């Protein structure tokens, strides 16, 4: 069984949020990127949980390879993290937007096309695991695009998965607005993992040390024969900004009992309760 896990490097969303809450989140001169150099870069949290899902399948007895792949300027750090966690193979598909004259990023279709080309070039995958969305652009379209391009089923927002005895299907528990749903998807399939999977494991110190020497295999677009995917993106980020927030909060002061009574009185007056 070959499990491919797609991971993306993002700015730490909690740090981004702290800057935003403090009113200190700013956009660079290019009009599109966040400027704070103090914000750490790390593996998208949902992708880390996708890797955790793969590792749990292995813990449950699945044999074979866990291959982690990333596209981006320099994902070596998150790929080494993946190796420390237990990935058997780490690969960087080198499509650095900085190499392009227009510096435009890849859109979802191009990203999916590259990942699909790489998956095919490595003999395919029985299971492709992705985070439900990246915490930077929140788009979450790449997994479905991969599924369509590969012509395989896509199951979204999983909190648990288990391989069927024959190894030809996966049983997935999805977190839906109506509660958990359990579905059976034939393999190969794409499954996206949500935060409800639970906290991912930490690498042991020994593995961390070992992974520091791990070098991701670098695959170029030429090698994949998908130069076309690097063409001008059809969805292009023009501008990014921090939305203004205009509060009009009335603070209710006084001792707890006083403030509580004042609040209930206001809510009654407004017809809110």
């Amino acid at each position, binding site marked *: 069984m070959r499990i491919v896990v797609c991971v993306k490097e993002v700015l730490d969303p909690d740090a981004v949020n702290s800057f935003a809450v403090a009113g200190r989140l700013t956009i660079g001169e290019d009009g599109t990127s966040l400027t704070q150099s103090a914000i750490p870069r790390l593996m998208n949290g949902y992708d880390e949980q996708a890797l955790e899902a793969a590792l749990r399948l292995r813990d449950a007895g699945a044999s074979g390879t866990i291959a982690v792949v990333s596209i981006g300027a320099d994902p070596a750090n998150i790929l080494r993290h993946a190796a420390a966690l237990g990935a058997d193979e780490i690969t960087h598909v080198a499509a650095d937007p900085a190499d392009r004259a227009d510096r435009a990023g890849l859109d979802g279709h191009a990203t999916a096309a590259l990942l699909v080309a790489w998956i095919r070039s490595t003999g395919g995958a029985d299971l492709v695991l992705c985070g439900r969305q990246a915490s930077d652009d929140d788009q*979450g379209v790449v997994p479905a695009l991969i599924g369509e391009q590969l012509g395989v089923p896509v199951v979204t927002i999983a909190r648990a998965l288990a391989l069927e005895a024959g190894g030809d299907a996966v049983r997935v528990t999805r977190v839906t607005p109506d509660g958990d749903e359990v579905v059976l998807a034939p393999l190969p399939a794409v499954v996206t993992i949500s935060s409800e999977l639970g906290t991912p494991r930490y690498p042991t110190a020994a593995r961390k040390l070992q992974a520091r020497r791990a070098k991701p295999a670098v695959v170029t677009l030429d090698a994949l024969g998908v130069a076309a995917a690097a063409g001008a993106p059809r969805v292009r980020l023009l501008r990014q900004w921090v939305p203004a927030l205009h509060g009009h909060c009335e*603070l209710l002061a006084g001792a707890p009992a006083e403030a509580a009574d004042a609040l*209930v009185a206001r809510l009654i007056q407004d017809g809110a309760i």
Partner: protein
Amino acid sequence: MAKVLVCGWDTQADGLAPGVEETLTLGRKLAAALGAELGLVVLGSAPPDAARVAGRHGASTLETLADPKLAAGGSDARVEALAQLCQAHAPRALLMPQTFDARLVAPRVAGRLGVPIVMNGIDVDVENGALRVTATAYGGDTHALYEIAGDGTALVCVSTTALRAEPAPEPRTPVVEEFPVDLRTVTERIRVLEPAKTEGPRLEEANTIVAGGRGLGAAEHFAWIEQLAEALGGMAGASRPLVDDGWVDASRQVGLTGRITRPALYIAVGISGASQHMAGCSAAKTIVAINRDADAAIFRHARYGIVGDCHEILPELIRAARAHRAGGS
């Protein structure tokens, strides 16, 4: 004439699903900018008031896609149906409210047709003939403006919580027709072994929500949230950290990756007001914030606020709410 289509499903017995009217409002704006016709598409049989809603929002057509395979709710049938619809009409844009199912179906349709897609849309416009979509990013900490190249079909999933539905100045009487969808070749590849069971009322439909966050300090303090919710005749919700820590069930999670709610009253206790959380409650008519930190972002969203220790305030608030309910104060 160019077309802008708005698609809805998850139709409820008593009418169109929430979000369809807000999406129609955006669709009308886009159609006007393009000089295009607006149409509403309903997967499955349309509820009785669909034509009236479509007309109120200025749609000139209401198309239904009726096939037993669509009624079953599988995504393979929905993807194929929408792909056929797009191929037949070549609309300039297909907009749909970003429901749980749409998050999967819309990008699959885009993948099948090889057409651009933007999720989390909150506004649409046209500049020099090109479609532009404003979407939220970083859980709402930023907004992003995307331009879509070309003049083919583009898909936009609309995040409708913060949008307001505005009927057209001139209502129309839409032409109602059935789109001849052919799903003979579709066999759902994914089999549902255990369907989701709604246990009790859903946060999405609650009129009053009292939600707790990390500021509660300990799991057992969530009981206060439940007591206050009960005293107000509402439901208890939570921010993601409480769910991640296992204090409460995931069905209680309000936020970008949890429940998107729009209650009349939302009381946030010990919740800092991170954008990811606000994405699930910012549509509330009245937000009340109770937080120890006077600088917490939640106060910028709130109509009323109490700065203080929720351990002291909650018992008093429960008392006051119960007294009101009992006909007192």
